[in-house]
């Protein structure tokens, strides 16, 4: 299944979109915060489009009112009857304290010994020329005060002590420091507010003197005072007598009270203030330019917010898209393609990301707090964003690919170091490795114990406990896994060859150990399976072949018998026919035994296990073989327990075993000898044995006697198929008995052991 989004073209598109949105996002953020910083963007009133209602206007208004108050204070200091006067007396202390005392008659002491006043024009000239101090730190006086008595003179005639002289001198220096800029401010405000082309109108009066500070005509102002709301768009009105205040500007109230004290200091108590702005802005001043700026940027607020929202969503969406498609290749959906960046160790990527964050933050601070105009700021921020986002994408997507390919840990520096150590370790022998673990662990533990008790470190104690817990966990896990493996080995040993050890959670040595055991199980299962299959095929083959042999054999036996029934005169011919008859009979026996032997050895028979009295069985067998033994003059010496000995067996099969053993004796025992038959029983076991003297020397090994077709006589001339012992042994094995053959010279001994059972089952009890 092809996925369009995994194609290179789509991915490039995503990257470009992502960068575009990142730039837009940052630009909108910067724009909004810049506007916010300039009070143009009022979070309480985003949709406001009117300049005069905006926080920005209030800000300009406040600035203006502050300037006007300052202007009035300067006027008080520099003017006489509303006109600038160079001859005006300036009291140093009052000026420095910002209080206007010119109009008041102040006599004698000023708190620092003596009042010192200078002419305004002198002070400005003095400030222009600069001043010096003498060795005592007292001002070198270029102009004498209006009293005609300089500080130095007062100091010399003792009317002023050094401390007061010093203070007066410092005060004068302060005045000299500020008077120059004050006079410039005065000139600036004069040109700004006391002209006809100002949008601002002010009217300030106090009780110090009847003079009113205003740039309005008297007629105008009287009307103004009455209908301040109706005549002017924006205004501020305050009457200190009635404590009446009215304003149309937000936040002006609080702001004004901060200024009020300075005002009353200058114009006296019972102040009355009116400041108003013509909101039509007919003249070009600060309000007009602020209005222009506001009109220019205000539409960007709504746009900026919209842009911010869109770009945030798109930024996240494209990032998610890039995250999902990273590493995927069109047409090979199950693979993760890595590139060169992914070869860099993961820690370096993380480091680079942190570095990027730091750099970005620093640059952002630089941009936001730098003295930039809005357009320049936006261009700068946009460019920075583009660069940073590109670097970020490269780093971030590399991490994403690693996580997807499950490579994050593997591509890390720590992993690299650890795997290096492990590689070195795995080449070290297991004993050495355990020694290393042991010594290392103990050293670390001792160190931690030392730190805990001597260094009194809680952290070390914590680590020590963790280390112990980890050690315990490791040992516990190891022993549990070992138990599991042992269990598996036992299961396999019991014959459950299909058993598999669950190796989940196994590591290192235990894992390979468990895997090896599982492999042994598999191998055994295959081998056994193959073997049983082969045995079964062999048994089937033998059965089929024997069927085919039986039919012609029937004819042979029948016709040999017919020949015998003819009265043959020729003795030799009679002998030949007898041989034919004997061999035919043997062939018959052989085929029957062969089928039986192959079936038994392949386990392809059904057993009907029941309770059997072995003593009874021996008696029965003895009865069956009585004649056969007598024929060879074999004497049976029987030693049997008096009580029944019960075992579990299939009656017919166990008879077959005993029959074969007796037959063996009948065939191969030396004539005129004794045959010993014994049954010995313990609590849990019973052993049947039969001993005889072999007629011929047995040359083969006893273990081979139970193999198929092996007989004591290598000539194979005697009767018998050579399968008797093999059948007996295999049948005994199938019924959970043990079969063994012993040979001591010519003494041949076979014994059969079975587990003895206590009580016969009820159905086999013989009741009289």
């Amino acid at each position, binding site marked *: 299944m092809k996925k369009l989004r995994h194609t290179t073209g789509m991915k490039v598109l995503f990257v470009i979109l992502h960068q575009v949105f990142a730039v837009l996002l940052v630009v909108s953020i910067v724009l909004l915060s810049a506007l916010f910083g300039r009070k143009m963007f009022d979070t309480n009133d985003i949709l406001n489009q009117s300049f005069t209602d905006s926080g920005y206007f209030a800000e300009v208004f406040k600035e203006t009112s502050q300037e006007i108050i300052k202007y009035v204070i300067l006027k008080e200091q520099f003017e006489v009857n509303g006109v600038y006067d160079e001859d005006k007396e300036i009291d140093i202390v009052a000026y420095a304290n910002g209080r206007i005392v010119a109009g008041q008659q102040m006599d004698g002491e000023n708190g620092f010994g003596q009042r010192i006043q200078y002419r305004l024009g002198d002070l400005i000239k003095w400030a222009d020329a600069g001043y010096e101090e003498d060795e005592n730190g007292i001002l070198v006086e270029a102009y004498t005060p209006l009293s005609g008595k300089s500080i130095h003179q007062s100091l010399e005639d003792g009317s002023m002590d050094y401390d007061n002289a010093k203070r007066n001198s410092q005060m004068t220096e302060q005045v000299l420091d500020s008077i120059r800029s004050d006079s410039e401010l005065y000139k600036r405000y004069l040109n700004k507010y006391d002209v006809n082309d100002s949008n601002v109108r002010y009217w300030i009066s106090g009780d110090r003197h009847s003079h009113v500070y205003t740039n309005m005509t008297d007629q105008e102002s009287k009307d103004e005072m009455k209908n301040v709301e109706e005549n002017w768009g924006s205004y501020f009105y305050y009457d200190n007598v009635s404590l009446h205040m009215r304003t149309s500007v937000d936040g002006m109230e609080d702001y004004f009270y901060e200024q009020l004290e300075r005002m009353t200091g200058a114009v006296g108590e019972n102040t009355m203030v009116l400041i108003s702005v013509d909101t039509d802005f007919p003249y070009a001043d600060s309000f007009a330019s602020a209005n222009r700026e506001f009109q220019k940027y205000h539409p960007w607020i709504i746009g900026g917010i919209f842009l911010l929202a869109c770009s945030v969503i798109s930024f996240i969406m494209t990032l998610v898209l890039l995250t999902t498609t990273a590493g995927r290749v069109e047409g090979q959906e199950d693979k993760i393609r890595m590139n060169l960046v992914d070869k860099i160790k993961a820690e370096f990527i993380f480091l680079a990301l942190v570095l990027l964050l730091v750099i970005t933050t620093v640059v952002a601070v630089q941009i936001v707090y730098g003295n930039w105009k809005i357009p320049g700021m936006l261009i700068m921020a946009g460019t920075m964003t583009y660069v940073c986002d590109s670097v970020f994408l490269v780093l971030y997507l590399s991490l994403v690919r690693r996580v997807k390919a499950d490579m994050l840990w593997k591509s890390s520096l720590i992993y690299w170091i650890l795997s290096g150590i492990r590689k070195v370790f795995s080449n070290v022998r297991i004993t050495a490795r355990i020694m290393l673990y042991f010594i290392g662990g103990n050293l670390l533990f001792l160190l931690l114990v030392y730190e805990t008790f001597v260094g009194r470190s809680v952290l070390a104690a914590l680590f020590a406990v963790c280390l112990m817990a980890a050690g315990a966990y490791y040992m516990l896990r190891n022993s549990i896994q070992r138990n599991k493996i042992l269990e598996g080995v036992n299961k396999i040993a019991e014959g459950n060859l299909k058993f598999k050890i669950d190796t989940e959670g196994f590591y290192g040595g235990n894992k390979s150990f468990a895997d090896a055991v599982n492999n042994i199980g598999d191998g055994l299962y295959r081998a056994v399976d193959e073997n049983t299959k082969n045995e079964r095929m062999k048994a089937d083959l033998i059965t089929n072949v024997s069927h085919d042999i039986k039919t012609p054999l*029937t004819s042979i*036996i029948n016709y040999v*018998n017919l020949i015998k029934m003819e009265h043959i005169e020729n003795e030799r011919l009679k002998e030949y026919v007898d041989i034919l008859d004997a061999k035919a009979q043997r062939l018959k026996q052989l085929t029957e035994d062969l089928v039986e032997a192959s079936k038994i050895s392949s386990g392809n028979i059904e057993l009907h296990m029941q309770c059997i009295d072995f003593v009874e069985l021996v008696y029965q067998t*003895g009865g069956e073989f009585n004649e056969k033994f007598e024929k060879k003059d074999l004497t049976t010496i029987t030693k049997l327990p008096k009580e029944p000995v019960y075992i579990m067996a299939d009656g017919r099969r166990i008879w077959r075993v005993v029959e074969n053993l007796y037959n063996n004796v009948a065939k191969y025992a030396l004539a005129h000898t004794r045959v010993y038959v014994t049954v010995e029983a313990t609590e849990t076991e019973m052993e049947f044995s039969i001993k005889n003297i072999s007629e011929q020397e047995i040359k083969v090994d006893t273990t081979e006697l139970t193999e198929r077709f092996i007989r004591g006589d290598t000539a194979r001339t005697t009767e018998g198929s050579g399968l008797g012992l093999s059948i007996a042994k295999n049948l005994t094995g199938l019924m959970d008995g043990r079969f063994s053959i012993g040979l001591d010279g010519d003494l041949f001994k076979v014994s059969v052991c079975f587990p003895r059972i206590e009580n016969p089952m009820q159905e086999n009890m013989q009741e009289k």
Partner: protein
Amino acid sequence: MNILVCDDDKEIVEAIEIYLQQEGYEVFRAYDGEDALKILKEEEIHLLIIDVMMPKLDGIRATLKIREESSIPIIILSAKSEDTDKILGLNVGADDYITKPFNPLELVARVKSQLRRYTKLGNAAENGQAVYQVGGLAINDELKEVTVDGEVVKLTPIEYNILLLLVKNQGKVFSINQIYENIWNEDAIGADNTVAVHIRHIREKIEINPKEPRYLKVVWGVGYKVDKN
């Protein structure tokens, strides 16, 4: 007496024919199951000897067909010697099952036995006297006479008593000790082969093939019994 011999091996059929003719039987030959069915319809046949593995119609299916109409003795003759094969053959209606290669004399004896039972014993409730009967085996306790398929068998007194004990208690298994105690009326101390030898002798007298007894059966490791008919 007419006997039908059916086997796909001509030589076997011929050999059987010779043996049976010597005993005075009339023999008909068939070489497959269908042949046999045809001859059975055309001729009056008293006994059928049939092979299992044959072309066209095998012995088992032929036996099933014959049993739909006829109750003549059927002896199956087969190279299959498994227990399951024998059980199958007897279950579909055969009266006897002989495995190849067989002893021809045993075959003749079995044929005779089947014919005697078929022709005579159907009405053999003799005088309602003390007669114990299991299949073809009958013991007349008054005459102390044992007959197998109508032929008198001579047994020694001990053999007779053992056989009588087992026949009287058909289906019950007697251990050697129990038989000894019953017959000799003594406790069986240190029993030996005696009983087993007697049993063997009885089998040799009353059974056609003592290794595959029809009447006196050995339950190995438990004892001896005569099955209920």
